[in-house]
C-alpha cells in the first residue's frame, strides 16, 4: 500500500543557479511557466532541457512505483492521471518548439550559429539542432527538385527573404518582479515607458519584454 515515495528525492538540483534546491512541486510549477512562455513567445526561447529531463525523471520514477501499487488503491488512478497531466505538459511544450523550429528553420539556425560564434548560450538542445539541420536539408532538397528543370536557375531568393517570427507581436504578461521603465515600443523614437509592479498584468509588444521574459522577470500569460 505504501508507495515508497519517501525514497524519492523530493529536491532536485538545478546546477544552473548555484545549486538551487527545488522541490518537485516547484519543478512542475517551473515546467508550467516554461510551457506558457514558449506557447506565447513569437520566437523560440532558450531551451530548458534540465527542467524537461528532471520532469521526465520524476515521471518514470513515479511510473515504476505505481507498478507495485495494487489497482484497488484509489490513489493509483490519481497518480496515473497526474503522470498523464505532466506528460501532456512536456509533450505540448516540445511540440511548440518543434513547430517554431520548422517554421523559422533558416532564421533559427542562423541565429544559433551567431550565438555560437559569440560564445553565448545556445537556444536549441543538441537533438533539436540535429532535427533542424536535417529539416533544412530536406526542405532544400525538395526545392531543388522543384526547380531543377533549368540548371543554374536563380532560385535562392527565398534565402534572402528568410521567414522570421514577428518580434513585435502583442503578448499578455504578468510581472514576477517589479520592473521600471519598460519601453513600450522600442522600435520607435517616442520613449513611452511603463512601470511594472509585482503581479501586474499588461498587453504589449513582445519586443519590449524579450529580455525580461528570458530572465524570468516577467511571465507570459
Amino acid at each position, binding site marked *: 500500500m505504501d508507495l515508497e515515495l519517501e525514497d524519492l528525492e523530493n529536491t532536485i538540483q538545478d546546477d544552473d543557479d548555484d545549486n538551487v534546491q527545488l522541490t518537485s*512541486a516547484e519543478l512542475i510549477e517551473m515546467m*508550467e511557466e516554461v510551457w506558457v512562455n514558449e506557447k506565447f513567445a513569437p520566437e523560440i526561447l532558450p531551451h530548458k532541457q534540465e527542467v524537461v529531463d528532471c520532469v521526465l525523471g520524476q515521471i518514470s520514477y513515479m511510473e515504476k512505483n505505481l507498478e507495485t501499487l495494487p489497482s484497488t488503491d484509489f490513489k493509483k488512478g490519481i497518480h496515473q492521471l497526474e503522470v498523464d497531466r*505532466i506528460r501532456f505538459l512536456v509533450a505540448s511544450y516540445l511540440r511548440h518548439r518543434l513547430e517554431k523550429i520548422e517554421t523559422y528553420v533558416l532564421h533559427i539556425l542562423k541565429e544559433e550559429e551567431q550565438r555560437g560564434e559569440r560564445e553565448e548560450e545556445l537556444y536549441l538542445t543538441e537533438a533539436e539542432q540535429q532535427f533542424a539541420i536535417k529539416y533544412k536539408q530536406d526542405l532544400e532538397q525538395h526545392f531543388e527538385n522543384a526547380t531543377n528543370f533549368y540548371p543554374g536557375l536563380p532560385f535562392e531568393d527565398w534565402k534572402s*527573404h528568410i521567414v522570421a517570427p514577428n518580434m513585435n507581436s502583442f503578448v499578455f504578461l504578468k510581472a514576477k518582479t517589479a520592473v521600471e521603465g519598460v519601453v513600450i515600443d522600442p522600435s520607435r523614437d517616442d520613449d*513611452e515607458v511603463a512601470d511594472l509592479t509585482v503581479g501586474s498584468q499588461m498587453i504589449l509588444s513582445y519586443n519590449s519584454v524579450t529580455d525580461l521574459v528570458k530572465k524570468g522577470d516577467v511571465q507570459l500569460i
Partner: protein
Amino acid sequence: MDPEEVEFLGEKQLVTIVPLTTDDDYLKLISGDFGPFRMGMPVKVPLWVAVQLKRQKHCKIQPPDWMEIETLEAIKNEEKLSRNFTKMPSKFYMVEAKQILGCASDDISRADEIRTIIKDIWDIRMSKLRSSIDLLVRNNGASAVVTNLTLMEINSIRPILPHTLDQIRRMKNFKPFHGWRSQDTSFVSDSRSSTSFHS
C-alpha cells in the same frame, strides 16, 4: 490557447474536500503532498484531484468561501457600478465554478442560483471588456494594463485583440516584406545577371 488549457492551469488551485472514508497515508503527488484523509476532516487538495475523488464518491467538495449567494451578489453589484474591472476572489473563478458546480452541485446549496450569478458576473465583465478593447483600438493603443482580468477572460480576447494591435502596428509602419528598392541597384549594376544563370 484552448479553454481546456486554461482550465488545466486552473485545476491546480487548492480546494477543500471532506473525505467520506479514512486513509491515513498522504497522497504524495509529484506536485506536492496532500492528506491525510480522515472521514469528516476537511483537507485541501488540487481541484483536479477533488473532482476525481468526488466522481468516485470518496469525498464531498466544500465550495470556496466566495461561492455563496451573498458574496457573489456583492461582487456582481460592485462590478456593475465600477468603471474598471474589480478584482475577482479567485483568478480562476470560472474554472472553479464550472468544475465544482459541474460535479458537486449536490454538495452546494442553491447551486443553480450560484451558477446564474457567476454567469451574470462573467457577462458584465465581458461586455465591459469589449468596450475597453474597442476604445484601445480606436486610440491605436500600444499597451494596456489588464491586471484584474482573469486568465479565462484574457484568453477570450485572444487572438483577436493581440492580432488587431499587430495589424495596427503594421499599418503604422508598413514595410512590405520585399526590399524592393535594394533589389533594383544590384540588378542595374549587373545587366547581365539574367545571362549568368548557367552554373
